């Protein structure tokens, strides 16, 4: 349970080598009418955010529960609204990058845009902002013929785009 506390805002010093950036791509596959979601994050940051180093993501000893924990984490930290309604997305899978540094997490939204009905999108992206104070989350939306580039931070964790047609 989170207990509300009153805080005075005070600065921190930077810690070394913390380059905290995540990349998310929402690619609309017009053939299948699916929104394909790819989230790329550093495994180290993910483990830190899950407060559970013991998951051993991407190793032979990876905990069985890790998939469920990861699945839930992103569902709570990347929220997508189409026409002001939350859209549920379904798990596709995860894989480790070739350089072993990052993990790719895949989700999918079926029948995303039947009959051009999507007029606006709202994204709430709070990935890792609880753990690192200088987190940036970069999102690229490739929808129909347009690209939308967004950067989310702790202070700017909700953004809306109107679909250009």
């Amino acid at each position, binding site marked *: 349970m989170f207990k509300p506390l009153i805080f005075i805002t*005070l*600065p921190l010093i*930077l*810690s070394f080598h913390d380059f905290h*950036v995540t990349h998310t791509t929402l*690619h609309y596959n017009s053939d299948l009418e699916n929104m394909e979601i790819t989230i790329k994050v550093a495994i180290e940051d993910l483990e830190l955010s899950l407060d559970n180093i013991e998951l051993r993501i991407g190793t032979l000893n990876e905990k069985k529960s890790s998939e469920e924990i990861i699945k839930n984490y992103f569902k709570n930290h990347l929220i997508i609204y189409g026409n002001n309604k939350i859209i549920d997305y379904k798990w596709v899978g995860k894989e480790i990058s070739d350089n072993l*540094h990052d993990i790719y997490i895949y989700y*999918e939204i079926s029948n995303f845009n039947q009959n051009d009905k999507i007029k606006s999108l709202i994204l709430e992206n709070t990935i890792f902002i609880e753990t690192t*104070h200088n987190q940036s989350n970069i999102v690229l939306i490739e929808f129909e013929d347009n690209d939308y580039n967004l*950067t989310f931070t702790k202070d700017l964790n909700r953004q809306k785009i109107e679909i250009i047609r």
Partner: protein
Amino acid sequence: MQLIQKKINFFILFLFLTPYMCAQDNLNNSKFKQLYEKLPTPNVYRTASGAPGHEYYQQKADYQINVELDEEKNILEGNEIITYTNNSPDVLNYLWVQLDQNVRAKNSHGQLTTTNSMNNKMSFRNIKRMHDRMNFDGGFKLEEVRDTYNNQLAYIINETMMRIELSKPLRQGQSFSFKIKYSYNINDRMKIGGRSGYEYFENEGNAIYTIAQFFPRMAVYNEVEGWQNKQFLGRGEFTLPFGDYKVNITVPSDHIVAATGELINAASVLSKNQIKRWEKAKNNFVDPVIIVTEEEAKESEKEKSKSKKTWTFEAKNVRDFGWASSRKFIWDAMAVDISGETVMAYSYYPKEGNPLWEQYSTRVVAHSLKVYSKYTIDYTYPQATSVHAKSIGMEYPMICFNFGRPESDGTYSKRTKYGMIGVIIHEVGHNFFPMIINSDERQWTWMDEGLNTFLQYITEQEFERNYPSRRGPPNNIVEYMKGDKSGISPIMTNSESILQFGNNAYGKPATALNILRETIMGRELFDYSFKTYSERWAFKHPTPADFFRTMEDASAVDLDWFWRGWFYTNDHVDISLDKVNWFKINTGNPEIENTISKNQEENKNTYVGISRNKSSIPKTVTEFDDQSIDFYTTYDPFKTNILDKEDYSKYMKNLDADEKEILKSAKNYYELHFSNIGGLVMPIILEFTFVDRTTEVIRIPAEIWKKNSKEVKKIFILDKEVTNVRLDPFLETADVDLNNNSWPARNEPTRFQIFKENDKKKENPMQRAIRAEEKSNE
């Protein structure tokens, strides 16, 4: 001479439409405009060729330091004598000294200027760290600042910088010595972070101290910045002059100390056995020899000695000094042959680092020294040390602190292994950039991190084939470069203001250099120029202009467009192959051409009604009634008559032998249209696939864009008919959109689509095992 206008007729075979773009103003906005306005004017200190000028100078700072570690209170007490020599032609009235520890002082500017915000969801870990940082009593506590006659010196402290007044001006060639006595509280790295500090092992009460920025250090004075006294805010690292060091380090007598330079009193701090093993290591070029064993370290861990020992180190011509101390240290060593000279590779690590560290650390140090020496200059320092330090990678001359800790059960993941090897290569590599090729880190992070990350990639690939490198290959930077431009800053941005630090100062410059080497300049020209830069600026202070100019000067490749695009802008690469037109020569010979035209006419797509009428109308009027026929009914436009033949022979008579040869050659002419969507001009690399399935690669330098950087056309004369063209087939330009790189157009599957496709096909290993078992039970 009589000129006869002779024309060859072509016929066009394919046609695709393309959008047209054009922009113009009244200034020279050419992407190939030279960099004059961007670079400083060459002078007697730095030449237009990028070399040190005939009056190049640099200052010297020599140090005699005594420090003592209080292990119980985690306090470091020290005193030092700094001797500063003014080699500049300028008269100095004051000196600036750096007090880097002050970044951890309460309410330092480093803390105050870090923007942050609060929300109602913060982890306890984060809040704890915030509390620990605010409560830590950091920073140098200065006891006295005196000259060598013990007179107090007037000084003022501005945050991380201290100005010392000189009683009389310091002129060219003169030296000034002064003493500082100080102490500071050592930070717990695990609680509040930091490049140096200690890690405490709670279960046994021991710590590993990795100590740096532990003494007031001279700032750099030169003709570029005057005094480089830009405050230390945390990100922009260090700018330091060269000098000679003698350092006495007093620690509990059961500690083992690693440091910059050479240990000169081994007999008073090591056992006879250890010295014997060390001597053995000096002749062992194949395997590391263990000098302090794991058993000895475990024995030391059990008790804490109350007595102390002093370790004395000396280092010549270094820009800084770092050290590490712990009773937990295991120490191994091996000799490395660098162009006939023996250099020692050392590693210091606790038992918690094994088995990884014993197997890899020293070997990786040795490998790094060899590869970097090959591409820059021979490593001239006597040793290079890698110290185990959880969670960080940090570099000092001859010594660096590196992460890579196995699980408590001794197993480790692939990621831990390659992460550790990568960080050791990187931090050992920093000996070259910036410790030897001593750039201004406070101003330009990329000059050491970017160049070093580039050589790290080369060194990793020489360590193991297909080493899982993070940074270097062009396609790894695509995601960053195509991202939101408001979150990107050009490489030429001051260290403190950089957005996306890792991609900006490490990844992008490393990739840019890789592209120069593999694609723009070629390995031979690049390697020579890069080595020239290293040789020119070894043990000196280079600037970005010196690097840019040397790379051109030594290679005869105009790279101004490349520096402009890759280093001064946020543009990305997106070149599109918009259109391919196919032409064949019209031979003029009516017999040949009429046949071709006839075939074309017959193969044309026809309206469905016409084809259906062929069978549904058995005979038309003109087919059953001869009286309905006239000249036009039977006229065959593709039939050759005598007049056509006469025209042809007249045409042929006008042609000379060479021209006739061209007519006969039957070549294919392909006109390709390209547009530049991303903004960065880059070479155009094309792979043509022909009807017989053979391929040919054609490489066109970036200068193809010199007159029009938005769109260009180019004709290719090929023997064979083309079925397929691909732009950037070997992924060497960091083109962010591969979907406009092919003719005929094709969509490259996304990573998501590839994953999903593969995932559909295979069951997971566990499912397969269960199914196999079920089958065998049947």
